[in-house]
């Protein structure tokens, strides 16, 4: 076996680490550990000059293993692995000790923190001894794309990809495409017809040679999971109008959209009991029907609009749904143009008018003959009551007007509740099916809130539209098209790096007990009857390592997380504190 020559590099991270950890002392100390050839500390290891130190040392001292003690490997592991590659060393001959997020940033005693950092670095050094070169594996990318959800986001993404000449499978659980947007009458801020916009797109999709649409479609679970495989090579079976189709594709775009807030949850508003209390969703229908009349067929003399229904309130949803304010203003304009004589009361908490043309819409609207009233969206929400017979109006809204501070009563023949957006009830299931996670509000989590808002932590799976967070049509569309661009890019590259740290079976030792088979969530392990051993399909394996822990014979190795590596890491970690403990005990005795 080749001689082990380890280089250890401890990062100051400016003052981030150096303030709380005695990096100089440590780099001296580490010099003395077995197989450590060189040990250095430097202000910013991740900087170009920092990386150059490593690259040069590898060449100069013939290092074949590198340990960097700095920030979290989730931050810079890739960076340093690249550095190793540049120096012609296999990137997996590298181990990182996290002495920033797990030490300098979270502790207050410099000695203790230095001690802990020592243990973490010693552990990394002990571990890296057993690292082995792993060869990157490349897999082709299936040019087809699966898009889940036929709303405006799904449609936009589909067209973007299909127009580039790539196959798209668009699956929609309802019987029609268009989703929520298709239910809208006019769009804000320019009050164009949503119908014209959508219908045209739906037609193009339905007749597009590169798009196969599956309506009333559901994904059929296999092995407890609905979509198996990984970036570049997914597969699934869908059921559409009763018939099953097996699909293979390289990327997935999740565009499952939103669910309107259920207004009945807010008892104050009596939705569902008081016929003339309607939600914004209902009101879009009324608008599309062309005539604005109350349930009992009268032309409303007074119409009230209440904002933030189910939004920005701990009892319902803490977040703002972003679109309701402008939609409300859109209503004011549409009502005014249809029924100029009708009085309109817009009861809001804060008017949120960001984005192109929105502030303009607000000022135009406010000049119309209508009344803005404010309420406290957190405490004492308005109370809607049925008015008595003698009253000339149908409903009565009682609430504390925030500006005046007076409790007032507003009469209305119709009240429109601006309901917010929610994630679908089956969001969790969908997340599980495609292998992504949910945030606290049950919207899908993007890989990075700022720098990567379309991708997810699962390669080849993208989230777009309102299933990722509440947004309006332009935001949804741009996110959808961004995702499409990402997908097209990966198809263009044509190949992806497949997980290297997979499991492998030592067939000399495997006894064929088959304990591992059912353990694998990706059905990557199968039993070979002729060889009487288990075999791992490394394309399907994602390297979770559960099988190697389940293997009673020690035949399955989890690459880069072998027993040997982890056990040495533990021993290295304890080496220092062990002697310390013995000291304590000597003192005690």
């Amino acid at each position: 076996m080749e001689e082990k020559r380890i280089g250890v590099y401890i990062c100051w991270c400016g003052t981030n680490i150096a303030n709380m950890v005695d990096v100089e002392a440590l780099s001296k100390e580490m010099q003395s550990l077995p197989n450590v050839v060189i040990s250095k500390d430097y202000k910013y290891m991740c900087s170009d000059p920092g990386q150059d130190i490593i690259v040069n040392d590898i060449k100069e001292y013939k290092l074949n293993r590198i340990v960097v003690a700095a920030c979290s490997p989730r931050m810079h592991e890739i960076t340093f692995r690249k550095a190793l590659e540049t120096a012609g060393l296999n990137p997996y001959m590298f181990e990182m000790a996290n002495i920033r997020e797990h030490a300098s940033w979270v502790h207050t005693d410099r000695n203790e923190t230095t001690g802990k950092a020592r243990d973490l670095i010693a552990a990394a050094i002990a571990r890296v001894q057993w690292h082995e070169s792993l060869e990157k594996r490349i897999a082709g990318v299936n040019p087809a794309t699966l898009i889940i959800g036929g709303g405006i986001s799904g449609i936009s993404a589909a067209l973007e990809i299909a127009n580039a000449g790539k196959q798209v499978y668009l699956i929609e659980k309802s019987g029609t495409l268009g989703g929520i947007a298709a239910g809208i009458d006019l769009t804000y801020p320019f009050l164009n017809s949503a119908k014209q916009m959508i219908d045209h797109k739906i037609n193009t999709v339905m007749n597009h040679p590169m798009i196969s649409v599956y309506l009333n479609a559901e994904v059929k679970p296999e092995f407890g999971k609905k979509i198996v495989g990984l970036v570049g090579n997914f597969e699934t079976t869908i059921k559409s109008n009763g018939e099953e189709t097996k699909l293979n594709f390289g990327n997935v775009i999740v565009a499952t959209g939103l669910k309107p807030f259920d207004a009945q949850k807010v008892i104050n508003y009596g939705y569902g009991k008081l016929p003339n209390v309607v939600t914004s969703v209902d009101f879009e229908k009324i608008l599309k029907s062309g005539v604005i009349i109350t349930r009992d067929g009268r032309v409303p003399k007074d119409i009230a609009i209440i904002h933030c229904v189910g939004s920005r309130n701990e009892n319902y949803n803490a977040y703002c749904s972003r679109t309701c304010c402008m939609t409300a203003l859109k209503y004011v304009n549409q009502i005014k143009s249809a029924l100029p004589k009708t009085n309109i009361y817009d009861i809001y908490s804060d008017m949120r008018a960001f984005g192109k043309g929105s502030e303009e819409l607000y000022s135009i609207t406010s000049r119309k003959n209508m009344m803005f009233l404010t309420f406290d969206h957190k405490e004492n929400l308005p109370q809607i009551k049925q008015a008595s017979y003698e009253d000339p109006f149908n409903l009565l809204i009682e609430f504390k007007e925030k500006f005046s501070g007076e409790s007032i009563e507003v009469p209305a023949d119709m009240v429109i509740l601006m309901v917010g957006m929610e994630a679908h009830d089956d969001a969790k299931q969908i997340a599980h099916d495609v292998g992504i996670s949910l945030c606290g509000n049950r919207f899908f989590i993007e890989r990075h809130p700022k720098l990567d808002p379309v991708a997810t932590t699962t390669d080849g799976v993208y989230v777009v539209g309102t299933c990722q967070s509440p947004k309006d049509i332009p935001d949804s569309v741009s996110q959808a098209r961004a995702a499409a661009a990402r997908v097209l890019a990966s198809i263009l590259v044509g190949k992806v790096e497949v997980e290297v740290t997979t499991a492998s079976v030592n067939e000399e030792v495997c006894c064929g007990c088959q304990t591992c088979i059912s353990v694998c969530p990706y059905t990557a392990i199968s039993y070979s009857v002729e060889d009487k051993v288990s075999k791992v399909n490394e394309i399907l394996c994602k390297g979770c390592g559960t099988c190697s822990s389940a293997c009673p014979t020690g035949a399955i190795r989890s690459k880069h997380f072998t027993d040997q590596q982890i056990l040495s890491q533990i021993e290295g970690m304890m080496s220092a504190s062990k002697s310390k403990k013995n000291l304590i005990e000597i003192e005690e005795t």
Partner: protein
Amino acid sequence: MEKKENGQKPKLKLAVYWGAACGGCCVSVLDVHESLFAVTEKADFVFWPIALDIKYNDIKAMPDGYIDVTLFNGAVRNSENEYMAKLLRDKTKILVAYGSCAHMGGIPGLANFFNKDEIFNRVYLTSETTFNPEQTMPQTEYEVTEGKLHIPVFFDDVKPLNHVVCVDYYLPGCPPKTERLVEVFMAIATGAQLPSKNSVIGARDKAQCDECDRKKTENKKINKILRPFEIVDDGETCFLEQGIICMGPATRSGCGNRCIKGNAPCRGCYGPPPDITDPGAKMMSALGTMIDSNDPIAIKEIVEDIADPAGTFYRFSLPGSILRRKIL
């Protein structure tokens, strides 16, 4: 090695010794039956307390490395065992830890759940048939009217051979299957290439399941852990798939599946396959994985049915395992 008069291949010098053992290992040596003569042709037994007229002093007198092969069976339970282990190490070229006790601690190693005092108290004081009003305990040195009597020091815990001396090879089993011994012996006698030092000989790398005739499937899901007498064993289905704990998957083959063929689950006397330090821990990991529930309470209940995890998963390997004794 000295030459025989007729100047043929020199005969091997063999020694067999036992520490804390039951004698089963020696019987396994004797059970070569008729082929005994084939063995005695190639080798001379230079030390075998149970069979030969050789005393400790004769061993002391031997030059270092005089003995070619020593089969040391039994665990290290007392000062005499340890003394003899060290002595024989010096006098032997190839020291073989023979049998489960020398290999991993074996059944006597179960004593590591207790310490000397607990064991003495039970045996010499509280045992129902013992009448010991003076609370007499065996003494390492005792003065009788006629003179001094000595017996060895009883240690607090049991150790496998490699905890007191450096072992060259391990020949596992309780007892080792005689056929395996003969194979190994012939290999040594014929000067065949031996595996690298410190490795296991006389056993296969693959675990029991590889040779097991019982039907195995991937359906290793356990809803209830059962004890052998709680099932009607069909004699055909994998024990684990019947809810019976079987150490087979974490145990080397080489014994010929003897217990399983007798319809009893494997208890692991042949020790772990290569690269595993602690078969018990591996088997716990595997068995845990098989538990067919994700509900903490249900899991707890299933685990509760494992009456004696330490004594089951470590039946033969406690002193050689990671936690080699109970912490008292």
